[in-house]
């Protein structure tokens, strides 16, 4: 009996020994396949939800935000009553039931989208029905609470959360933070075991962008542009407001614009931020820079007088005329050439300064090259290479045969307003890491000095004369403040052939306020006004005046002059 028990125990002991030796072997010399299998058994994946960073204005008001949304999918093979489910879902989601029935009827598919980016209430309502074969995926939805305001500037996202236009595109990398998965150990019920708090330390939110834009100023600008388009039956309008000292963009708009919440449904030509992407011949607003070139080269003083040939001046085989037949001046001072916007006077100045110096001056003021603004799609404009024939020099001196963007013109005026330094315009004031609180503030960048302080002061004084009693820019005045600026009424080039379109103009006013210590540079361009008037002084001047008045009042700038002065 005893021997039998011994044998049985010995056998069991031997088997236990084998198991123990094997266990020890596996512990000491782990097998890769078994290790992977164990990991699968004890590990689970936790999704760390990413959220795109917000965009706010200079005062911290929200312009673009992301919220969690829920996307519904279905597995048609698991659905018990596909037709009934499709009809019920269509009713709940406000969709056509036929499309859903067709989706669910495909026996090959194991995954079909039912609806994307639904809110939590809709998800709870559908989830409460506990329908087998329906599932949810968490996604982020981008919201633009200001709707139509600054649509072309902000841009919008594609269906996979990638920036497609505007700032959403140019700052896509910084704003975006990709969703990540993290492997953690799990318990028997599949719940993740939190051991070292790693999940909570992970931050996946993109950077928050604080813009230089002022939401109120933007609203005023867009409202005024819309009103101008309606009043003058124009094709479109553009406007830019810059901080005169730094070239920070305070407002930028074109109308018609669009609502970025429905960005994908809008035709592509409406999505353009035209102040940066579109080129045009600026017309008389460029005379300022021909005169600035004369000042730079020491060829003229504000009081120097030029013969203006009674309104007709032959250059090569062409006759240069003033804008109106009644403008048959015989001679004008430089101040008057600018104030009355004389084509012949500007031509005479350009001839005296010379094509190479005029071109150099225009190039220094930023024409013909990108300003370097942090917005997508910026164009460089066209500034013809030398040599220029006399007709070409004459035309370019008063803004024909050269193309610029609205931002380029505004920025060049900012250089005159701020004491002679050309700055790089910018729109992002700061980048903020919401988790660490680290803020990176954008420093304004100077490109080059284009005028001495004294020359810029002389230019400002001459531009103030434009809004004087006999100047073309009288309508741009702001009660109580000195305004400097220049009107423009440019013929529109014919896109299909040489020459210009009949009765098609770009009306503009570009200026700065208050002229003695400029804070704002405002550029207004109204494209092809068809009713009432087409002169820059009558179409764009009043828009400038209202905007400047609002901006100064908002900023709390005290008036310099009483209404009687």
């Amino acid at each position: 009996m005893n021997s039998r028990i011994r044998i049985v125990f010995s056998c069991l002991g031997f088997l236990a020994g084998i198991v123990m030796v094997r266990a020890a072997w596996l512990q000491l010399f782990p097998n890769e396949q078994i290790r992977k299998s164990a990991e699968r058994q004890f590990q689970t994946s936790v999704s760390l939800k990413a959220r795109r960073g917000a965009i706010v204005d200079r005062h911290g008001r929200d312009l673009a935000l992301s919220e969690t949304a829920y996307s519904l999918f279905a597995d048609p093979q698991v659905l018990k009553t596909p037709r009934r489910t499709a009809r019920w879902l269509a009713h709940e989601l406000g969709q056509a039931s036929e499309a859903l029935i067709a989706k669910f009827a495909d026996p090959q598919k194991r995954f079909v989208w039912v609806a994307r980016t639904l809110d939590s209430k809709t998800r709870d309502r559908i989830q409460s029905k506990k329908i087998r074969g329906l599932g949810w995926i968490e996604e982020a939805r981008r919201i633009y609470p200001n709707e139509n305001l600054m649509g072309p500037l902000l841009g919008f996202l594609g269906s996979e959360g990638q920036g497609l236009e505007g700032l959403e595109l140019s700052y896509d990398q910084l704003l975006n933070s990709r969703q990540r998965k993290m492997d953690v150990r799990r318990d028997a019920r599949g719940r993740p075991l939190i051991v070292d708090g790693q999940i909570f330390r992970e931050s996946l939110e993109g950077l928050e962008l604080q813009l230089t834009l002022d939401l109120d100023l933007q609203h005023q600008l867009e409202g005024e542009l819309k009103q101008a388009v309606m009043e003058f039956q124009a094709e479109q309008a553009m406007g830019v407001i810059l901080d005169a000292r730094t070239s920070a963009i305070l407002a930028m708009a074109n109308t018609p614009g669009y609502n970025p919440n429905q960005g994908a449904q809008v035709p592509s030509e409406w999505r353009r931020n035209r102040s940066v992407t579109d080129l045009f011949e600026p017309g008389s607003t460029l005379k300022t820079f021909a005169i600035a070139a004369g000042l730079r080269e020491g060829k003229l003083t504000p009081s120097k007088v030029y013969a203006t040939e009674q309104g007709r001046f032959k250059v090569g085989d062409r006759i240069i005329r003033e804008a109106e037949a009644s403008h048959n001046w015989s001679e004008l001072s430089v101040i008057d050439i600018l104030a009355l916007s004389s084509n012949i006077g500007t031509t005479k100045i350009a001839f005296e300064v010379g094509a190479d110096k005029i071109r150099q001056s225009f190039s220094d003021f930023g024409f013909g090259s990108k300003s370097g603004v942090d917005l997508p799609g910026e164009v460089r404009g066209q500034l013809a290479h030398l040599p220029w024939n006399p007709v070409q020099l004459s035309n370019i001196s008063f803004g024909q045969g050269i193309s610029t963007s609205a931002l380029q013109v505004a920025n060049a005026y900012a250089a005159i307003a701020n004491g002679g330094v050309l700055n790089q315009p910018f729109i992002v004031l700061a980048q903020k890491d919401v988790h660490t609180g680290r803020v990176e503030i954008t420093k304004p960048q100077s490109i080059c000095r284009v005028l001495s302080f004294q020359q810029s002061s002389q230019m400002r004084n001459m531009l103030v004369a434009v809004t004087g009693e006999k100047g073309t820019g009288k309508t741009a005045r702001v009660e109580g403040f000195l305004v400097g600026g220049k009107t423009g009424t440019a013929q529109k080039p014919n896109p299909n052939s040489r020459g210009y379109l009949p009765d098609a103009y770009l009306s503009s006013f570009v200026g700065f306020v208050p002229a003695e210590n400029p804070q704002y540079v405002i550029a207004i361009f109204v494209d092809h006004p068809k009713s009432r008037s087409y002169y820059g002084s009558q179409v764009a001047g009043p828009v400038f005046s209202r905007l400047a008045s609002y901006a100064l009042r908002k900023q709390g700038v005290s008036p310099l002059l009483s209404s009687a002065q």
Partner: protein
Amino acid sequence: MHFIKPLGSVLVIVGAMAAVAHLRTYERLLGYELWSLHREQRLASEEKKRLSIELAKLSRPQYVEGVAQRQFDLKKISQKQLIRLQPLPEVQAPLRLGDKLN
């Protein structure tokens, strides 16, 4: 008496193992609590986000302007509504006893 020493050792070992097991269980419990708190925090932050979006929609300038004009009959500001700030005249403080006269 000579049984006490091994018994004590066994008790110490068993006690230590029980303490380790208890601490591990406690760590797990804390982990679960942390997980559920994390979920609650996430829901709260989502709610906060939703409310801030609603606030941004309600405070957008075009909406505020519309409400001001429709419901409160306010008019759009005009260019002439500028307030001219005059410097305040200097007011001399009244003399008190002990003040020196110039």
